[in-house]
């Protein structure tokens, strides 16, 4: 227990690789993610297994992970040892899914690799869900890492696989490659110019899907949209990854064109909105999570356009650290909603002042 909490504190002090704001198209593509779903042959899927069955699976995966070079420095967390707020903390950092945090925690685990690039969920919907999360549009590299980690784990685990249907998953929507590739895009100018629905509609026509910041079933807040492949069967992994990377690249171009158009035609109004957003964030004493996300989105745009002299990693990180579980871990106790709004405002003021200090001045 003490070990788990200490491990989480170490995570809290660091910034995940995917928030660094670097890599191809990092101004618009916040992160790229590759997820592979795998199950162990001869074992029932987690929702249909006994507690003992799930325990056997977890032990087997832990043993395999212990031998995988890519997970040499990894943190292993058993979810039943973590209080709810800490499970939520992992959700906010995109290390586990909401389903993994909310379900019966018994025999569930997550294995977190160096710089939070790799995370392996054990006994989520499938026995193994491994993800590679990186900054910028980096899906091909992500696939290469995921595929190698898959190979390392496979040395010790017999996966449920059929030559006809590929990797067998709990839900038939993931069968085949078990691959879901996704890119998180920040598209404020497509939203401002009201082109976003047209773009999202076109994406769904291409066999992809668009969702909000926290993936499945969440709303698009802060102008973040996650696009991912819908089909996992009948197309080879490199083909799926290439298609998503290409389409994400096209959406990036559309957002760039929209930014260009707004800057050309309406620069003053845009700068006004951005500086007002920044002014609110660095001055507020009470601020909700929703308002924070919306204002940070504008400031992030300001950073990308060279209007606000802050570094992108600071803004990216604030999207995560202003979330409820992060605030409560920072405070070291549970906070009521109003207390969180006060803490959040304090964190924003301190972080923005520190970042502005590093960049040497804030006013235009």
């Amino acid at each position, binding site marked *: 227990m003490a070990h788990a909490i200490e491990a989480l504190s170490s995570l809290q002090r660091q910034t995940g690789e995917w928030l660094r704001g670097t890599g191809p198209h990092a101004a618009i593509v916040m992160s790229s993610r590759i997820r592979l779903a795998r*199950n162990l*042959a*001869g*074992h*029932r*899927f987690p*929702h*249909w297994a006994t507690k003992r069955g799930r325990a056997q699976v977890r032990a087997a995966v832990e043993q395999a992970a212990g031998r995988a070079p890519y997970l040499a420095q990894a943190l292993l967390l058993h979810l039943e040892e973590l209080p709810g707020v800490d499970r939520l903390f992992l959700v906010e950092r995109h290390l586990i899914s*909401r*389903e993994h945090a909310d379900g019966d925690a018994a025999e569930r685990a997550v294995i977190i690799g160096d710089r939070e690039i790799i995370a392996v969920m054990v006994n989520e*919907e499938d026995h193994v869900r491994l993800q590679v999360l990186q900054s910028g549009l980096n899906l091909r590299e992500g696939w290469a890492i995921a*595929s190698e980690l*898959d*190979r390392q784990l*496979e040395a010790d685990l*017999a*996966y*449920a*696989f*059929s*030559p*006809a*249907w*590929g*990797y*067998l998953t*709990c*839900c*038939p*929507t*993931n*069968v*085949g*490659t078990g*691959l879901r590739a996704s890119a998180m895009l920040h598209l404020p100018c497509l939203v401002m110019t009201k082109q976003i*629905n047209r773009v999202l*509609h076109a994406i*769904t*026509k*291409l*066999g*992809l*899907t668009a*969702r909000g910041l926290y*993936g*499945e*079933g969440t*709303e698009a807040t802060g102008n973040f949209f996650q696009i*991912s*492949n*819908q*089909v*996992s*069967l*009948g*197309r*080879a*992994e*490199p083909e799926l990854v290439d*298609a998503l990377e290409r389409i994400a690249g096209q959406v990036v171009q559309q957002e760039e064109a929209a930014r260009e158009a707004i800057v050309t035609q309406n620069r003053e109004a845009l700068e006004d909105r951005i500086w007002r957003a920044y002014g609110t964030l660095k001055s507020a004493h009470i601020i909700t999570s929703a308002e924070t996300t919306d204002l940070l989105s504008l400031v992030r745009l300001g950073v990308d356009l060279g209007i606000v002299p802050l570094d992108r990693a600071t803004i990216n990180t604030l999207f995560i650290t202003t979330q409820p579980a992060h605030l409560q871990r920072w405070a070291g106790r549970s906070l009521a909603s109003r207390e969180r709004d006060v803490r959040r405002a304090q964190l924003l003021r301190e972080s923005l002042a520190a970042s502005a200090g590093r960049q040497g001045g804030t006013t235009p």
Partner: protein
Amino acid sequence: MTCDLCGEREATVHLTEIIQDESRELHLCEPCAREKGVKMDAPFGLADLMTGLTDLGATLEQSGIAPPTACPQCGLRFEDFKRSGRLGCGTCYETFQRGLALLLRQVHGASRHIGKAPAATSPQAKREAELEGLKARLKQAVKSEAFEEAATLRDRIGQLEPPPKPKGTRRGTRHRSAQ
């Protein structure tokens, strides 16, 4: 865009179902989608799956296919699957294969895996996996104009590739392109 069902609220759930090249779209608001049984917090694709599942019973009846009642390995019944959209174990895929093949074609536009396989699987599956990797490298080599490497890769692919099959059988189940 307003909801196709209530015609009042903004549609936020967009379902596309593609059967035999016929694409049907459904735009729903969240409350209507919930009512229709689209699980909002479920993994993506489950919505499509659920739509498919609703029709599946009828389709199977019409075609005279009676799915086995329970999986011999884990005891999951087809009814359980229809209710939750989740299977019980890997063997369920064999047990319910006829019903699933229909469903997979609806969800993925395909019912046969192409791509990576575990190294420990059959020599044939292994060969296919190697082919896939070689083809990806070939594409990369051609792109970067490394023609010598490309020629070597092409020879290796030629050795591994099975003789060509009659047109239309290899990907006969694919009727959707995600491009």
